[in-house]
């Protein structure tokens, strides 16, 4: 009797495992086929075209402009334009590396009128306001940035 119960349990377990294999196997086969077919169709695409397709043309041209403006060994002030969970500041920092960033915080907090106007760290001339793709980052001079903060905290947009 014990042996029968043991065998039945094992058979059930094997069935559960087999079910998983069939279900997952078919999904995996479909996905793999899709990925391989996509790779075959895009194999001749040049890296810039792939980046444009993935990140958006406006975002990419903004990144290119930032790279041209800020020297490769230069530095900039980084401001988060969107929410923290969009990660825009990380993606822009990654695209601009090895340019060094000093982080000022989120634009909404800096310009809410309640937070004291920040003392910008000495050095970096440029301020980059980062958004998540496909919304392009914005580049401005530090004086322009301070002016915008003043405008916003006095009720401007």
């Amino acid at each position, binding site marked *: 009797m014990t042996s029968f119960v043991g065998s039945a349990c094992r058979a059930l377990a094997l069935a559960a495992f087999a079910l998983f294999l069939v279900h997952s196997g078919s999904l995996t086969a479909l*996905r793999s086929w899709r990925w391989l077919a996509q790779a075959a169709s895009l194999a001749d695409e040049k890296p810039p075209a792939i980046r444009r397709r993935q990140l958006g043309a406006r975002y990419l041209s903004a990144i290119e402009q930032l790279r041209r403006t800020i020297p490769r060994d230069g530095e900039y002030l980084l401001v988060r334009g969107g929410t923290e969970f969009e990660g825009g500041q990380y993606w822009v920092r990654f695209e601009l590396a090895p340019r060094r960033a000093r982080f000022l915080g989120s634009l909404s907090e800096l310009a809410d009128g309640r937070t004291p106007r920040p003392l910008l760290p000495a050095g970096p001339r440029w301020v980059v306001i980062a958004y998540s793709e496909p919304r392009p980052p914005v580049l401005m001079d530090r004086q322009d940035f301070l002016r915008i903060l003043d405008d916003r905290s006095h009720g401007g947009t």
Partner: protein
Amino acid sequence: MAGIEKLVQLAGVALFAVPGAALVELLPALRALPWGQRLAYAYLLGVAFVAGGLYALSHFLAVPLRVPAILTLALAPAGGWLAMAARHRFPRRADHPRGRRWNALQILAFGMAGVVFLSILAEVFINPLRDWDGRMTWAAQARYMRAEGTVDPAVLTQPGWYLTHSWYPALMPVAQVAVLELLRAGDDEHFFRAVYAFFFPVWLLILYGGARRWASRNAAALTTLAVALLPFPAIYRGGGAVSAYSDLPLACFYGAGFLLLLALRPRLSAAVGGGLLLAAAALTKNEGAPLALWALSVAAFVSVFAGVPRRRLAGGRWRPYMLAAGIVLAACVLLLSWRVGIPDRFESYREIISWSTLWPGVITRVPLLLPKIRLQMLSLADWGTFWLAAFVVLLAGWRGLRRRVTLPLLLAAAAPLGIAWIAYSVSLDPVESVRTSWNRFVLQASVPLMILLTLAVDDVLCVLPGRWNRDRHLRP
């Protein structure tokens, strides 16, 4: 033409595989393994040796992370192997018999794993990196290191620069730098992605080889097939082989290093291999160092308390463990020395953890966190119905777990999950921590965990007719 250019990433993989293959030939314990295992260990040892060596040379001796140093380090093991071959004339493969032909289940498992791996390669060859931590932490760190040619770039050593988790161990970023430098890649050419992708077949091979030590080939093949079908380790952007997260590499280093040392009498060459892999684990992620020390302790514990008479331990039985521990401690010294130069090294953690909640949080958070963990494990997108099936198999095949090796495997699998639980106990937002990291901790524990599952699968298979469990064999 652009299609062919994409394959250049394979040269980056060879940068680690070739020196690793030479290292395997230099270590008799590894040379005796079946060829699939040798390939897997070669890749891991190559990454450990080349990236770890560059890490140490750059930090201690200020050697620039440029092509001359990269190639010298990559060619050194091959030179050593050639010198040894000339002197000793290695016995050719007499020490391991030719493997039997694969059966249908093995062909299915390896074939399916191959298809999944090809699709991962297709993804990484075609697309740029689009994950979260890869771009936020690891690849960003690599870019700063590459630009200055050192593992101590100004952005790390000067205060105030914006870099997330600047004190995370940098083995994988150094590996990225080595590949990008060798291939003269531009900023937008993410040629390091294939290096991460190759950890997927390596992980499967290590798992299969480990499973075969204690289970039948059908059980090992079935588990490997199941694991190859899991979405999370393969295609998940938050830690799988298509990402640039360090969790899959850590799972490989930790699992493979532990398996090499998990023997009643590990050879000195196995200890060197195991030590190198665990040292790489320590240099791969924060939790790597405690995991490496834990793996060493568990393996030594097995030797002391499981079968070896204690009086014989004095006669050099400790030597392999001391050797492995020495290599791991050297990696820890490198890590600590490197971190000393990073001024705000714990800043980002101070905002998200508080040690004061450890007690009684470690107990009182159980009702809050267990349902969240269950949600992660039952996520169809990440794991399919794998954990449900695995749970049923473990229940039905529990007799397969009545083995001497179960306890050390269980202890090794529990360590990453224990670290996760401590992290959640001190986290100021434990629910979010579970959501973003639980699956990755499971991945880190995966090698010993899946071997345990294989033991249960082996027992469950005995319900089938003879040909399915013909080579079942109970080893300790």
